[in-house]
């Protein structure tokens, strides 16, 4: 009798706990779906930085257009609410410039001289500034290792500077939020930089458990 009661009690407790888990998962799933629906109803391409699944997706109308695998995602300090955010600007040490066409030279060089801004010109190490002072530093794993080996002095300097900057932000600029993302190849970081455009909206999904 006692054994049966105990088994029933364990069963009920487990059942309640599982139901609560399911409710919690569904609650967060619905929150994400609501936020995405608001973006999918527009005619704009939007991004989803999904830390839980380690991917960055570009989507439109709910359809995945392209995705990049993240090999590292770190979020120092603040978490992020499930609401859409806007990309304000992109910053890099070397910013590719648009080329100006000089009509005077048209006859000399020909109209179809290949001189354009392309994804391959995009930096592989850059910072995205989003609404509410959120900064996302994007780089590539491969390039980090290579640049560390070939420019070790610079790397150490940068490493120390970045860590000091993080501590500074955490201590004295509580509004500033920092995330770091590493992609596999420099070319991935470059094409991602190309695809991000100022004013673009998107979601950042962190683990909710």
């Amino acid at each position, binding site marked *: 009798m006692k054994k049966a009661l105990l088994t029933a009690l364990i069963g009920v407790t487990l059942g309640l706990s599982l139901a609560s888990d399911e409710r919690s998962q569904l609650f967060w799933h619905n929150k994400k779906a609501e936020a995405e629906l608001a973006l999918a109803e527009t005619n704009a391409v939007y991004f989803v930085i999904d830390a839980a699944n380690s991917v960055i997706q570009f989507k439109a109308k*709910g359809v995945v*257009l*392209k995705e990049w695998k993240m090999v590292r995602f770190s979020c120092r300090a603040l978490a992020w609410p499930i609401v859409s955010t806007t990309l304000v600007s992109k910053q890099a040490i070397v910013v590719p410039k648009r080329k100006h*066409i000089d009509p005077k030279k048209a006859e000399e060089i020909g109209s*179809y001289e290949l001189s354009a801004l392309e994804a391959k010109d995009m930096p592989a190490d850059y910072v995205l500034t989003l609404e509410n002072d959120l900064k996302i530093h994007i780089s590539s794993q491969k390039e980090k290792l290579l640049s560390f080996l070939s420019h070790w002095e610079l790397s150490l300097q940068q490493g120390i500077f970045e860590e000091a900057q993080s501590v500074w932000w955490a201590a004295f600029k509580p509004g500033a939020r920092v995330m770091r993302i590493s992609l596999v190849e420099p070319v991935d970081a470059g094409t991602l930089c190309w*695809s991000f455009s100022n004013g673009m909206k998107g979601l950042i999904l962190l683990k909710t458990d």
Partner: protein
Amino acid sequence: MTNKKFVPWVLSGLVSLVLIGAASVVMVRQRQVRVERQSYVSAPALPALKALKAKSRELAGQLRRNAPQGVYIIIDTGQNILTMKRGDKVLRRGIVSTGSGNVLEDPNGRRSWVFDTPRGVFSVKAMIRDPYWVRPDWAFIEEGKPVPKRLDERVEGGVLGEYALSFGNGFFIHGTLYTRMLGRNVTHGCVRVGDADLEAVYKTASVGSKIIIF
């Protein structure tokens, strides 16, 4: 001599004080961070499971209804790739040329053009067989030539390939004479496609088909 002995101790003491101070401030801030994080991730009053499931179904349905119906075209301007799909199925994939991002300024006026392929969700407005190109002002300015006043001086045949699909504001998906440039960003904003891919797109898509460019 005695004073000199104390200097390293005083210095290291000061450094330690600064470090301890900074660490304390960081710890206090991190506590605030944890509190804020908790406010984002905790759901204080969860609705009933039945209500949550109903809401989930409703949201999934709304998301599905937003997805393009029938055939749609995705253009990746970074890699210059066109993908034609129906639902999740890829029907065709081809290399294209998209906007160069170059800037042209009219030396005689205040106009300027940026040759980007527009990004976003568009739809096919018109489908044209054997299209003629009505050269806009920039096409003459770019070549250092005077802009003609008469329309017939702007019309040029045979440069857009066999087919063209308009997606608004003077932008087209069309053919090209410069097939060696496919895969590069060289256009004035239009999407240039190779002959075989263009024919497949023309024959499969229809007016109203969605074109998603990123």
